[in-house]
């Protein structure tokens, strides 16, 4: 098997008496597109915050990009990429200012920033938009740019939190093609969504219900196991018994 990029065992997060995430265990391999799905309130966001180094688990153990989730949150943050639909880029900064800002946050030197930023723009065929305000770009362009910026420091793993909501089907597919390309180059993709058709794009999918991972396999095997035609059906079968709402 290829290298393990995320490995967690019995990871748990409690808020007072409430167990938001309950003893989840799984491995994610290099170059994999790993889908993470669940109903509102299932604990996806809490789980992802622990994996991104934003919150320490109450108990359990694990590593992300080689760093300990129990104690090395700061190091994890520097070695991952993160993009979400709600927050990705600053609308009132230009394309280049955004690149510069995030490259700085990820710890790239000025020379590296100039070099990789220029490469990034030419690969996206965005070089002419260098000084355009991000707010005036079409949504699909913003998402492509946001993904490129989230990987500007060549992280081993990128977390995508509901990345493609609201764009037209063609743009969405161009976005997924970018994700496939990054995965083919060896970047691991961890993607959350509660839209099941997106789950079909993943190599493997973990489904969270009430704080636990109730199923984990490739979409084809999950559909077979639950005798379902689509991931939507698989999900609804599992989520029907959920006790929690959001």
């Amino acid at each position, binding site marked *: 098997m290829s290298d393990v990029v995320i490995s967690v065992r019995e990871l748990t997060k409690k808020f007072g008496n409430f167990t938001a995430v309950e003893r989840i265990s799984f491995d994610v391999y290099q170059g994999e597109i790993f889908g993470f799905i669940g109903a*509102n309130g299932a604990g996806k966001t809490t789980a992802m915050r622990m994996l991104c180094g934003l919150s320490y688990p109450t108990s359990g153990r694990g590593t992300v990009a080689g760093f300990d989730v129990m104690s090395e949150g700061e190091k994890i943050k520097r070695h991952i990429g993160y993009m979400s639909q709600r927050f990705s880029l600053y609308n009132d900064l230009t394309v280049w200012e955004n690149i510069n800002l995030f490259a700085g946050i990820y710890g790239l030197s000025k020379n590296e920033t100039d070099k990789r930023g220029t490469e990034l723009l030419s690969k996206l065929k965005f070089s002419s938009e260098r000084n355009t305000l991000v707010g005036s770009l*079409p949504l699909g362009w913003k998402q492509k740019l946001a993904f490129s910026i989230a990987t500007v420091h060549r992280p081993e793993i990128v977390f995508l939190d509901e990345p493609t*909501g609201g*764009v*037209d089907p063609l743009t969405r*597919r161009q976005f997924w093609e970018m994700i496939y390309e990054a995965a083919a180059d060896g970047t691991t993709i961890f993607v959350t969504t509660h*839209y099941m058709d997106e789950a079909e794009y993943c190599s493997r999918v973990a489904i969270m219900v009430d704080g636990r991972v109730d199923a984990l396999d490739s979409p084809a095997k999950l559909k077979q196991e639950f005798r379902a035609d689509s991931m*939507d059906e698989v999900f609804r079968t599992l*989520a029907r018994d959920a006790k929690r*709402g959001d």
Partner: protein
Amino acid sequence: MSVIEVENLSKNFGDVKALDSISFSVNRGELFGLIGPDGAGKTTLFRLLTTLLNPDEGRASVDGFDIVKEYRSIRSRVGYMPGRFSLYPDLTVEENLSFFAALFGVTIKESYDLFAPIYKKIEPFSTRRAAHLSGGMKQKLALSCALIHRPSVLFLDEPTTGIDAVSRVELWDMLAGLKEQGITILVSTPYMDEASRCDRIALCNEGRILGIDNPREILKRFDSKLYAVGADNMYALIRAARQIDGVIECYPFGEKHHIVATDEFNVETFKEQLKDLKGLSIEPVQPVIEDVFIKLMKR
């Protein structure tokens, strides 16, 4: 008979053509879906039809009343559930309902039978503040409030955005129930797979309508050959497939990629040319709404 009639309606915001001369009509009792991504103009259209905005050009009527000249008559006849939660978070469930009843000068009793199937699910929480309801419960309350004055037309702007798959199905079931009661419903969604729950749909993109029909008929507008292809390395496959004769397009589609092909495309030749790809598979498939949408977008 048409309850909603829209003729060459346009609305600009500065240089942005939010709606670019669109026309369509919705029949009484119909469940009509506006399907398209952000920026298609769906919300602008709702705001025009509910008389919150005036158009730049064109005309429209709702339940026989003109949206500009007779806006007051329209306001008392339509129910509107905007995309964002629009109730009062610090009023309780019951207080929200009474408030909207008072606004429209009706009593809860008068229309209780209409929204009871929906409201009953949140009635046990009638003294809870709206702010403390779950997403699905908030939506049921919003829908109940939108029905309090027995509207003849119901406008729902992206009611399924941001809610999970189970609540989505529940919402569509509620709409089907309201349709049974004779209410005309105009609903928007960015999710193409919800099209099948509508009587008719309009596919919208960038202020224009790409096509209007019932969900089954609109699939017939896809007039090319379509195949689902797969291989162990899906990224290598997409790049290689685009070089093959007869392939018009190849795009990711869930577990597989879809290939749109000309009549000359030959499956055996395709297999032969890509025989170096491990795990190669190809089979003809029926188009779904997304394939049609992509095709119409490219025209």
